[in-house]
Each structure stands twice: as structure tokens, then as C-alpha cells.
């Protein structure tokens, strides 16, 4: 799994791990947009870092629904300097979404599914960028679409 430094085009190995209690002091609203510690009770929170570097570049909150063989993405945010046209690194959110797909495939094999509830304005953009499938209120990745994301970002 890698992200790309936009200014140099250099690929950097990315690692994703579960957020540790000590990380919540770093996950400020000013840099990561949301109050992440509020999600601690209801979701599992993951952080993306460059291998060997402590700085957190992206955060994601996931909820597992074992009865439905589905992992739901509740929230994703790249750090402030990785937003917009002038971001430092590209592929951060893609790697986080693909990580959710990896977890789901690891746990649910061919039944794996990843879903999210999108903002209406963003529906088509998620579909285009991440091959997400329309499922009414939710968008989801399953079957070939899920495999495509794994191939693109993980494998």
C-alpha cells in the first residue's frame, strides 16, 4: 500500500494501524476536522502513516456488522494539509477505503462488503472514484467492485 507525494511523484509505503489512546491528543479538530475521541465507544478508529514516520496523515472510523458481513465506514478525514488541490500526498482516502475492504475480505471472504452513507452531492463522485455501487441511502463495495479497490490500493 502506498501514497504519492504530489510535488515529487515519489511513492511512499503507507501503514494503517488502530489508533492508540495516546493518539487522541494528536487528533485535534483543527487538523483532523472532527472530534475523533467521541467515536471511541461506537467505532474502531484507524490511522494512516508513512512507514517509519509517526505523523498521522489520515483517520477512519469503522463499524463492523457481522450479521450482514459488512463493514461500515462512518468517517474519514485526511489531515488538513492533505486536502484540496494543493495536498501533500495523494491516495490517502483510497488507501483507507481499501483497508476497510481488506478487513472485510479477511473476515468475510466472498461475502465481504464495505458501505457508507454519502452526502447527496458526493454520490456520483464516490461512484466514479471508488467504483461504489448505489444502494439507496448507502453506497457500497462488494464483489468485483470491492476486488477492484483491493487490486488498486492493497495488492
Amino acid at each position: 500500500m502506498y501514497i504519492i507525494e504530489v510535488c515529487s511523484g515519489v511513492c511512499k509505503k503507507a501503514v494503517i494501524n488502530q489508533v492508540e489512546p495516546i493518539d487522541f491528543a494528536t487528533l485535534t479538530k483543527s487538523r483532523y476536522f472532527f472530534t475523533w475521541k467521541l467515536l471511541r465507544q461506537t467505532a474502531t478508529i484507524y490511522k494512516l502513516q508513512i512507514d517509519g514516520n509517526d505523523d498521522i496523515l489520515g483517520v477512519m472510523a469503522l463499524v463492523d456488522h457481522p450479521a450482514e458481513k459488512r463493514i461500515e465506514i462512518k468517517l474519514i478525514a485526511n489531515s488538513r494539509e492533505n486536502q484540496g488541490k494543493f495536498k501533500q500526498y495523494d491516495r490517502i482516502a483510497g488507501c483507507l477505503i481499501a483497508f476497510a475492504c481488506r478487513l472485510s475480505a479477511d473476515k468475510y471472504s466472498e461475502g465481504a462488503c464495505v458501505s457508507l452513507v454519502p452526502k447527496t452531492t458526493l454520490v456520483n463522485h464516490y461512484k466514479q472514484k471508488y467504483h461504489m455501487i448505489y444502494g439507496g441511502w448507502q453506497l457500497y463495495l462488494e464483489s468485483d467492485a470491492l476486488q477492484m479497490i483491493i487490486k488498486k490500493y492493497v495488492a
Partner: protein
Amino acid sequence: MNYKRLYKKLLKEHGPEELVNGFVFPVKLTAKQQKEAAEQLAAARKKTQAEMTEETKNSLRLYHLRFRIEDYLDSKEGFNPEFTFGFFLKRYVELLEKKRKDFAEEISIDETLLSQLINNHRMPPDYITIRLEIHSNNIIPATYWIRLVEKQRLHEISTNEELRKKEKKFVTAMITEKQLA
């Protein structure tokens, strides 16, 4: 700032294309909407699953196995006697729902050799790991199979006291602490 305002501000600042590169926003649904969302998703997934080809099912099963191997290889825990090359090869054949005879034929080896590999009576030659990589359509690289064998071998060599005793008599001189100092 509530999240609706934050969303509007960011949408204005970056536009929708850039927002999907950096966010999944929280969306609050009412109880009624949640129920509707669950029903819609279940119906959509039923359709996707019904249309899933055997090829895709097999690929996803192999990704599942690949990630299991990856997790084991990357874990800080040492060798687990359960997770041998043979164990994962057995899982490979089972996940693809193949008879051992048919699978052995598909990678052009004798069924007896396949059984020996599965039962850990033989270590795989390099060509087997390459054939497994090709058979999996590169989903499980040969290096993963090799690393499984290495993990097992490293454990065996570092814990084999009997072999150490046996080989000691063949070493007629050794470097002393004094020489090392």
C-alpha cells in the same frame, strides 16, 4: 461549528471532486431512514451477490487467504505450529472447493506429492511456489509461500537442541571467549 456547516464550507472551498479524495462525512439518518437504508442495501446486495461469478468468488476467497497469510507473516508473534505451509495449502484447495486429485492435475504434480506437502511431510520445491502463484492469478505471490516455509525453518533451526548436540562432535575446535575479547 457543527458538521453541516463544516461540510458546506469545505464543499465551497474544495469542490466535490476533491472532497471525495479526503473525506467521508458523518450523515445522520432518522430511525425511519435507517430502516429504509438497511432494506435498500439488503435488496441491492442480494442482486450483486446473485450476479457474482464463480471467478470473482474464487478471487475473493483467495484474497481472504492471502490476507490471513499476510497477517500471520507480519505478526510479531513467532512461529505457530498450526500455521505451516501445509496448513495454508490445504486451505487453498478447500477454499477453491477442489478435489485434491483435480488440483494436483491443474498444477501438474502427483497427487501423492500434494498430500505430502499438505501433511508437512515434505517442504515445497521452488517450482511449486511459482506454480501456486500462477494458479492464484498472482493473488498469492510465491514469496508468501516461501516466507511461510522460512518462518517454519527458522523456528526449527533455532530450537533444535538435539541436532546441536549431534553436530557438536564434528567440530574439533572453537573460538574461545578469550579470542573474541
